[in-house]
């Protein structure tokens, strides 16, 4: 059975290089999704993320990638900004429509401490999901100024300066992590390994 991970390339932004490296260490095979026909080759998708919500969605629209992602129907993992654009709408540099795979909005973090939230932090798992197997008590590396605000599909929360936000979400086979597993040592590699081993049905 093929198990090819398609990493969606959207523009100049993206920590694609490091994600490919981590997927490889996690014993997965990946390729870059650059065109519409590439979606058919992929058994799973990763949406990487460094950049702004607005630029990311504009680039996905321009490339015609919004529809194939929404209709992918196999496992998708959104990382950081890649998790945020799963939401209905984002408020970074104006209001922008997201992919709408999770009922949520993306807003600036408001709390009594420094922003961006940068560094290692833990998870408070509310409802575990397969990609968190064996790593629920580990620390992961966060670097973000915005957060996903949603009221369902929450797998885990994280607390920063007394402020709780959604750090992992899961809606059927759509997964999102606010942290960077590709930058979170062995536990991050394990998360990729868990994702790679998900069934593709």
């Amino acid at each position: 059975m093929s198990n090819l991970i398609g990493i969606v390339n959207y523009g100049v932004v993206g920590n694609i290089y490091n994600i490919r490296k981590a997927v490889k260490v996690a014993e997965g095979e990946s390729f870059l999704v650059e065109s519409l026909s590439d979606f058919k080759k992929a058994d799973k998708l990763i949406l990487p993320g460094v950049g702004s919500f607005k630029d990311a969605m504009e680039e996905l629209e321009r490339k015609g990638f919004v529809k194939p992602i929404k209709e992918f129907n196999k496992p998708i993992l959104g990382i950081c900004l890649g998790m945020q654009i799963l939401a209905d709408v984002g408020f970074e540099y104006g209001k922008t429509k997201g992919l709408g795979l999770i009922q949520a909005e993306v807003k600036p973090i408001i709390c009594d401490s420094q922003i961006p939230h940068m560094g290692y932090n833990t998870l408070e798992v509310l409802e575990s999901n397969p990609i968190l197997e064996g790593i629920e008590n580990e620390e992961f590396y966060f670097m973000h100024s915005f957060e996903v605000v949603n009221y369902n599909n929450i797998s885990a929360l994280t607390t920063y300066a007394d402020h709780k936000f959604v750090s992992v979400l899961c809606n059927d086979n759509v997964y999102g992590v606010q942290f960077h597993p590709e930058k979170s040592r062995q536990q991050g590699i394990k998360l990729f390994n868990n994702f790679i081993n998900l069934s593709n049905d």
Partner: protein
Amino acid sequence: MKTRIIAKLDVKPPFVVKPVHFEGLRKVGKPAALVEKYNTQGADEIFYIDIVSSLYRREILIDEIKRASNASFVPFGVGGGVQSVNDFSNLFHHGADKVIVNTFAITENKNIISEAARIFGSQAVVVNIEAKKNYNGWECYTDCGRIPSGIPVLDWAKEVERLGAGEILLQSVDADGRQRGFDVELAKLVVDLVNIPVVVASGAGSLEDIATLIKEARPSGVAIASLLHYDKFSIQDIKDFLRL
């Protein structure tokens, strides 16, 4: 949140070097080997700064950076000679998670900070401040601590925050490489002034120095070079001592 312990590599390709007062270079090893060492020791992050590219006005040596970043599974910040949004993009495509900028933003165009933050997000833009004490405060230096800019450190820290920098790397030209303790007074002023994370470097000579800095100034991270390069302590020793 736990204070991040960051290994800082000052690179004069193809070697990691250890300057004293930003001068008097000594070779300590190859970047990729040291990245692997600190990654294994449990560094929370690794900073790679090409300390001569700005001074020599030469291009960033991407191959060296790519080789080094391959060994890192923690965030990898890269700086030295960054002059355009294109440089940011190029570095992100070769393994950098954050890009560190100093000289160009001060001497040529500070708007590189806001442009990069707009495109790549604030979290990916680190401003390196090289501070040197003078008769009425601290002044920003460029080109690896060699050239005074006339700009007060506290004004510049506030300004780079306004421009959208996601983090400040605060180095002290006076304390760097001497292993006689951090400039805690400066660190505290900057940490209290801005609402973005501040990583403090320059001066760690003992575990107590690091503990004092964290207690007094509460930085988001501490960047360490000499102590680690000469195996005086490992990252794990530091974390054990600080109970991180």
